[in-house]
Every structure is written in C-alpha cells, then in structure tokens.
C-alpha cells in the first residue's frame, strides 16, 4: 500500500538566514498594505450586501461577488505563504456546483462551501494582525538601518541651542546623557549606533516571529480545511486502490486456478487414464500375444512422455523454475529462445533479483505478450525491453505485426490487466489497426528490501554462475 503523503511535512531545506530574512520581511511588509486593502474591500462588500439585502436580488450577488473576491485574495495569500512556511503551496479545492445544477444553485454555490467563509474571515482579521506585525517589522528595520548609519547623517540633525544637543531626547534629557556620557559627537554616534546594532542582531528573530504569526494564522484559516480534506481524499484513494488490488488478485487467482484445473483435466489426467488402460491391456496380451504386448507398452511409454511434457508446460505456467532459480533476465532469455519469431531482448546485465511478485508479474506479462505475438500479430520480429527506473520495473514488448490487439478481445491480455493490478501495477496496450503493437507493464517497488524477502531465498545464496 502506498504510504500516505503527509501534507504538513516540510520539504524545503533550511534556507540561509539572510534569504529567509528577506522573504519574511517582504511577506510582512507587503502584507501590511495588502491586508488593509483586503480588509477594506471585504468590509465594503459585506456592508454593501447588508445594506442591499432588503432588496434581496441585489444583496445576494454582491455577497457572492465578495466571496469570490475573498477567494482571489486567499489564493494570492496561499502563494505568498509557501516560502515563509518553507513548504509547497497547498492547492485548495473549492467544491463546484453539481453539473446539473440550475443557474440559481450555481450562483449560491459559495454559500455552501465553508472555505469561502473562512476566506472572508481571514480577509477581515488579517488587517489588524498585519498592523501589529507590519508595524513591528517596519520599526525594527528603520531603527536598525537608521541606527547603524547614524554616523553618516548625524550632521543633518539640527543643533538648536534652545534644546539640548542631540536628536533623541528622553524626558528632555539627551539620550547620551541618559547613559551617563558627555554629550559629544562621538558619544552620540556611539549610543545610537549601539542601539541600531541591538536591533540588527534581533532583527531576523523578530521578523521571523512576525512572519510566522501572520503566516500561521493564514495557513490555519486558508489551508486547514483543505489539508483535512486532502488527507481524507488520500486515505479514501488508498483504500479504493487496495480494494481494487485485492479484487484483482482474487479474480486473477480464480481465473488461473480454473484454467489450471481445465488444463490438468484435458491433458495429463487423460493421458494417465490412457496409460492405465494400455498397461491393463498389455498384461492380458502378455500370455497370448507377447508381440502385441510390446507394442502396447511402447504406446504407453509414448503416452507417459506426452504426459510429462504437458506437466512441464503446466508447471512453467505456474512458476517457471528458471525464474525462481535465476531471475527475470535468464527466464526472459529462455522465453525468447523458445519463441517462433526472432526476439530482441534488452535487459540490463546487472538487473538485481526482484521480489517474487514483481518477477512473476513481469515474466507472465512478457510471456503472454509473446504468445500474443506468435498467435495473433503476424509479426516477423518482436522486442522485449526491461528497465528499472526509480522504484519501478518497466517491461515493454513491441512487435511489427498488424495491431488490433485489445484487452477485451480474449487475447489473454484481459487476464494480464488483473495480474498487473494485483501487483499494484499498471498495463498499457497500444495497438492501432495496422500495428505496431506495444504492451507495457509497470510494477511498483520491485526491489526486495530485506524485510520483504519471503520466497526470495534464491536471491541471496547465489553469488554467480559456477565456474
């Protein structure tokens, strides 16, 4: 089963603090006017709607318009959130009106979707929050920059003889004197620069704090419901996939067992009965006609050979020994060697041993596709390509035949769809009339990983072919 992706897991690496400072500052400072405008617009919309509500037909559209406006503002905010929270942007799904809904129902859709109301709520509360966070960040930046550069613009501060010298005054006492220093140029610069430095040192933390405060408020209101819904949807999807996988496995197994029973019944079972009859006849013939007895025994021997051939074919169809012993590459090479048209096989030489499920699924897909090539395609060549990109096993069988193969045509390909699904994989068939036909199977997690090695003993004990 696929692990559920947790949408709250941070994915971006830790940024350097300077970059983050820029991102956070921009977020909060841009948010200040944006929050004000958003709040005013939504407030205006709501007020307008309330005033017009007695004239119902006018109030409702204004309210709907306000909801859509809030949604637009929310989308912009979601985009702005991503770099601050260091996580990917959350795609929020606004439930649309049902496809068969009437015009009025469509118009009223926003009222039934809780996210619109949360968007409106966010637009209303973000203004006041922005005022605090934005004000703080702005102050910190101004004091930092102003303080650190005081030496450059101290001359511009008017030295009015009526006032004590020095720009910054606390209770009519120049700032330097508050610190008990003589009021000289050097001391004035020293004190203000020191204050600027103090603000500079705390700047990243204060800015980050403000940005996070604002961002988490937005995240909670704008993405919270969506996150929950995503999780529910993910769980539901996984459950559906697991159910389909189980159903496919059951169906594939039932089909395989039925076919096996029929094959045993039509093949070796009949032959063994025939052998028993022949041997019985031979025993009777021994006394009267030894030559006839010899002929009958010869026939019985021939029948045993046929029976063994059929059993071999059957076992190959269940779990081919070469696949269990030597893995996919050797088994596919053997398949290709038995094929009736030339097969180009392209399998990485260093293909590791895979899980039994992956090996068998890939093997039977290729075997069935090659059977199809021989029986139906009229092809003169075929190619088998197996590769292992990422965490998937991809097997493709292509031929130059006449095409027209389809899972529904009883070409044996229908069973493959079930087989693939049972392994959690997928099957694609491309077979336009006139060809060429291409059958492609993808199987997830094909690599045995130690914990999941049931039946994979053959994978470990074989260091290489005997010298």
């Amino acid at each position, binding site marked *: 089963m696929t692990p559920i992706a947790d949408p709250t897991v941070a994915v971006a690496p830790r940024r350097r603090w300077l970059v983050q400072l820029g991102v956070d500052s921009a977020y909060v400072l841009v948010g200040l006017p944006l929050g004000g405008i958003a709040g005013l617009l939504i407030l205006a919309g709501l007020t307008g709607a309330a005033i017009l509500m007695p004239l119902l037909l006018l109030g409702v559209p204004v309210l709907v318009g306000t909801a859509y406006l809030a949604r637009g503002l929310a989308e912009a905010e979601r985009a702005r959130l991503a770099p601050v929270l260091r996580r990917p942007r959350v795609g929020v799904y606004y439930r649309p009106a049902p496809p068969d809904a009437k015009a009025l129902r469509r118009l009223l859709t926003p009222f039934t979707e809780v996210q619109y109301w949360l968007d409106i709520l966010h637009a209303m509360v973000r203004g006041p929050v922005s005022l605090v966070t934005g004000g703080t960040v702005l102050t910190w930046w101004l004091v930092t920059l102003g303080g650190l550069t005081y030496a450059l613009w101290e001359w511009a501060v008017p030295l009015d003889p009526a006032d004590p010298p020095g720009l910054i005054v606390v209770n009519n006492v120049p700032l330097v004197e508050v610190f008990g220093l003589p009021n000289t140029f050097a001391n004035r610069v020293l004190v203000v620069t020191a204050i600027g430095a103090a603000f500079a040192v705390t700047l990243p933390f204060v800015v980050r704090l403000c940005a996070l405060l604002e961002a988490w408020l937005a995240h909670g209101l704008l993405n919270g419901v969506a996150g929950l819904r995503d999780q529910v949807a993910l769980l539901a999807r996984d459950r559906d996939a697991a159910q389909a996988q189980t159903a496919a496995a059951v169906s594939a197994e039932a089909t395989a067992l039925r076919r096996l029973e029929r094959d045993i019944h039509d093949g070796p079972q009949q032959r063994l009965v025939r052998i028993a009859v022949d041997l019985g006849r031979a025993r009777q013939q021994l006394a009267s006609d030894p030559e006839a007895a010899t002929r009958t025994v010869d026939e019985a021997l021939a029948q045993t050979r046929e029976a063994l051939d059929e059993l071999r074919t059957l076992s190959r169809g269940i779990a081919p020994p070469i696949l*269990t012993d030597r893995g996919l590459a050797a088994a596919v090479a053997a398949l290709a060697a038995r094929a009736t048209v030339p097969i180009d096989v392209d399998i990485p030489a260093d293909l590791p041993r895979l899980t039994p499920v992956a090996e068998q699924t890939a093997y039977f897909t290729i075997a069935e596709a090659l059977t199809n090539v021989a029986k139906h395609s009229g092809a003169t060549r075929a190619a088998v390509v197996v590769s292992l990109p990422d965490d998937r096993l991809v097997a493709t069988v292509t031929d130059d035949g006449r095409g027209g193969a389809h899972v529904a045509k009883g070409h044996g390909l229908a069973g493959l769809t079930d087989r693939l699904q049972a392994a959690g994989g997928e099957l694609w068939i491309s077979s336009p009339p006139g060809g060429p036909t291409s059958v492609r199977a993808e199987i997830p997690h094909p690599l045995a990983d130690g914990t999941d090695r049931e039946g994979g003993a053959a994978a470990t004990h074989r260091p290489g072919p005997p010298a």
Partner: protein
Amino acid sequence: MRILLADDAVLLREGLVRLLTEQGHEVVAVVGDGPSLVSSALSLRPDVSIVDIRMPPTHTDEGLRAAATIRQAWPGAPILLLSQYVEVSYADDLLADRRGAVGYLLKDRVADIAEFSDALHRVAAGGTVLDPEVVAQLLVRRRVRDPLAALTPREREVLALMAEGRSNTAIARTLVITEGAVEKHVANIFAKLSLPPDEDTNRRVLAVLTFLRS
C-alpha cells in the same frame, strides 16, 4: 560402472537404482542433497554421477552448483545431470569449463533404457551429452541473417545430433545412412558455418555449441 546417484525424490531414486543394477552397474552411494553429493563424489570417485538438478537445501539448481564444485576439486569428473526441465542457460553453465564428461538430460529420457545407457557410457568416457530439447532451443534462436538457413534439412538433422554429442557412427545409425554420408554432411556443415574441422568428437561438440550459442 560404479555410479553415484543424487536425487531427493525417493520414488525415482529407487526406480533408478533398480534399473542401474539390472543393467549390471554398481550404485556405490545414494544421496539426497547438494553438500552430501559433493563429499561423496570427492571421496568415492565414481565412474559417473547421476545428479538431479533440483535438490535440498535450496530446492533450486543445487545439483548444478554441486556439479560445479565437484569439478573444481576434481576437474573432468563425469557427471550426468537429470532434470524435469531443460534450459539453455543451465547447459551453458555446465559446459563452461569445456572439459567434457558432462551430460544434461530430461528425466523422462531414462525410460528409453538403451539411449540412457548409451548416454551414461558417453559421459563416463569423457563425452558431452545434451538433451535434444536443449538443442532444439538452441536451434530455434533465429538471427537476422541466419547462417543455419544455408543448411539442407538433412544437414540440420546432422547438426542437431552433433550438438547432442553423438559420434559419426551414432549419427549414421540414427539417420539410417552410411558413415561416409555422415562425414560428407559434417564437412559441408563446417564449411557452410565456417568452423574449423575437427576429428575429436568432444571438441567438435563444443565448437558446434559455441556456434549455436553465439
């Protein structure tokens, strides 16, 4: 001949012991798994070992790997492998040391006692014996420009029998033709496939197999 028998299937094992004894051979030991096969073969030095490929402890190609181990310690140890299945890649492993004295047959070939007895003797004498099924798999591998297409149907038959490890005399007997005719076919085949002619049967088998596997 002194024969070592390795098979974990009791039913078949007893049948084989009976058959071999009736043929006048001595079964020096009977084992049922890979490790005891290796130790018995190396200590008893039988004239030929008859080995089932699938045996405990791994139940995969244990017999094949035991054969390789034996032939590392005792080069050219005569071993005849039996299996319910024949696969070209197993034959490749078996023939890899190019020393001869190996055979690889389907288990049901035992039913033809004369053939089986002949195969045993050929392996014990240092020859190579390959199941017709393996040869058929080798022959079915087609190529874009198939040099085998130049052979006449009769020459293909002779080639297949050569690949199974038969001598000219045996080929002549099987196809009911004279030995001279066989020699002529063999010369033609080697010319058409551009193989160097070789009088030694075992080297000839290897040359043919190398060609078919290439």
